[in-house]
């Protein structure tokens, strides 16, 4: 009885207050649309930043005359005895030569022999630890020179300047994106609650009368909350439909044409739908429920 009464009340006030309800729904729709575009974008940029960070690595060049046994020894040192090692890739002389030759055939034609050393590409466990990793492999002596941990190693390089640049750049990107996302969420919550408050303000007399005939606060509030849920769900669903159209029409073909832009990990579309729907329903239900507090004090 109660539930059906509240549902009837909510649908009645939706019908009777079509214009303010539509305004509330439109504001939900717009903010959800913006959020729906923004969330994957933030993820794409931070994902791209992470990818770049993933490329931060330390090259361990062996001496050109290093034997297989020495290479094995260095590999063991790297994988077992060195801290902050994430991943170790071995690029042999021959492999490196083949790769370079493919990229620049004439130059290597002229060269004749293979000048390249065997190389270990060592990725740190955390991009930030790249300096520590380098210090472990090539400790600084008191005189300021770098030595190497193994005599078979020729040089340890971490392309220092690039690394620090990348690290600071990604940090800035992540921070500004997070800030932007927070501002956007705040703006949308304010927008929605403001619209709802306006539509409630138009009905404050109604609430006053309800209080006077002895309706409890929740008896008055439930229909408004249900109304908020309906408005939020409608706005959310419409935003999702529009996003879906945009995805099918623009993003998907783009993905096929530009597969080079390696799509970094973004949110799954299904999850995005759920997040948006839950957010729109929660915000507008809470918005109408809370905005009512002011008018309930009679």
């Amino acid at each position, binding site marked *: 009885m109660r539930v059906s009464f509240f549902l009837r009340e909510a649908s009645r006030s939706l019908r009777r207050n079509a214009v303010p309800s539509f305004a509330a729904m439109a504001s939900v729709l717009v903010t959800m649309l913006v959020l729906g575009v923004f969330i994957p974008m933030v993820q794409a940029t931070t994902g791209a930043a992470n990818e770049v960070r993933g490329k931060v690595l330390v090259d361990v060049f062996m001496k050109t005359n290093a034997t297989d046994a020495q290479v094995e020894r260095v590999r063991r040192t790297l994988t077992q005895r060195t801290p902050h090692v994430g991943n170790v890739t071995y690029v042999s002389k021959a492999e490196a030569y083949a790769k370079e030759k493919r990229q620049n055939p004439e130059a290597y034609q002229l060269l004749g022999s293979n000048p390249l050393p065997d190389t270990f590409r060592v990725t740190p466990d955390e991009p930030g630890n790249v300096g520590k990793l380098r210090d472990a492999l090539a400790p600084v002596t008191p005189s300021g020179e770098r030595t190497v941990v193994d005599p078979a190693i020729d040089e340890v390089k971490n392309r220092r300047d690039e690394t620090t640049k990348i690290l600071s750049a990604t940090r800035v990107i992540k921070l500004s994106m997070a800030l932007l996302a927070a501002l956007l969420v705040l703006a949308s919550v304010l927008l929605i609650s403001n619209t709802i408050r306006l539509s409630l303000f138009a009905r404050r007399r109604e609430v006053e009368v309800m209080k006077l005939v*002895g309706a409890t606060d929740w008896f008055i509030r439930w229909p408004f909350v249900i109304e908020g849920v309906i408005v939020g769900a409608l706005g959310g669903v419409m935003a999702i439909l529009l996003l879906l159209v945009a995805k099918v029409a623009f993003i998907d073909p783009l993905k096929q044409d530009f597969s080079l832009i390696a799509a970094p990990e973004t949110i799954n579309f299904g999850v995005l739908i759920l997040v948006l729907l839950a957010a729109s329903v929660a915000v507008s239900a809470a918005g109408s429920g809370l905005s009512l507090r002011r008018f309930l004090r009679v």
Partner: protein
Amino acid sequence: MSASERQIRARHLPAARRRAQGQPVGPPARSADLPPDARNVIEFRQVCMHYPAGDIGLDGATFNVRRGEFVFIVGSTGSGKSTIMRLLIKEREPTSGTIRVAGRALHEVDRKKIPYYRRNIGVVFQDFKLLPNRTVYDNVAYALSATGASRKEIRAKVPDVLRLTGLSTKLHNYPDQLSGGEQQRVSVARAFVNHPPLLLADEPTGNLDPHTSLGIMQLLYRIYRAGTTVLVATHDSHMVDRMRRRVIELQGGAIIRDEASGLYAQREQTTDEFSDMLDSAYHDDPRRR
């Protein structure tokens, strides 16, 4: 009340009230008995109400209303009539003093219980306060469903009370399709549908022409005859004089007169025509036969 008692009380009374006591006051005021009385539906004890803006709503008002009484509260605008109503529905808290309704002190009713307390009081306002986007039927039904009545109960009670108030043909009209008198009837119906023991009417005829006012008063009188205590704040002198009921007169928030069967103002003459008319209306009601 003994003379010494009166002196003690007079010392605590505000100036306005003391001045008022100098005037010829009607029959020894019943409102002076101090201990709580089970027969009293309403008890005001030295109630003061000062609005935040500095206006004085009530200034040491003390009176009782017995079960089954019909009481007019008269006085010019700003004399505190509406303040009494507001305090009785606990829309406002008095600055000082005690109000008891049906033996219960209102300041002991906590905020969460106010809705339940209000269900025992029917309220009628000058501006009707109907829900504009509900039909006559739904306006009355809302008051019932707010108290948790079942749909069956609503279907049984609403047509009944609408018949009593003469609105049987207007069930599905919206308030803006009704005349002022009809709207006020709806609001009376809404106030009475729960059969509350106490009915408050704040200027119920303030917006209506004399003829329509008479109809509303007849309706209130009928409700009173059915056993409900009715408190009517009004400045409709004509009506008060014709009905010869108890009159409490306020001035500047203080009670200056309390008469068992008074006139709006003391100089006016008595007529009996209204009570005759009311009686005939009462017997004409098909439900009473």
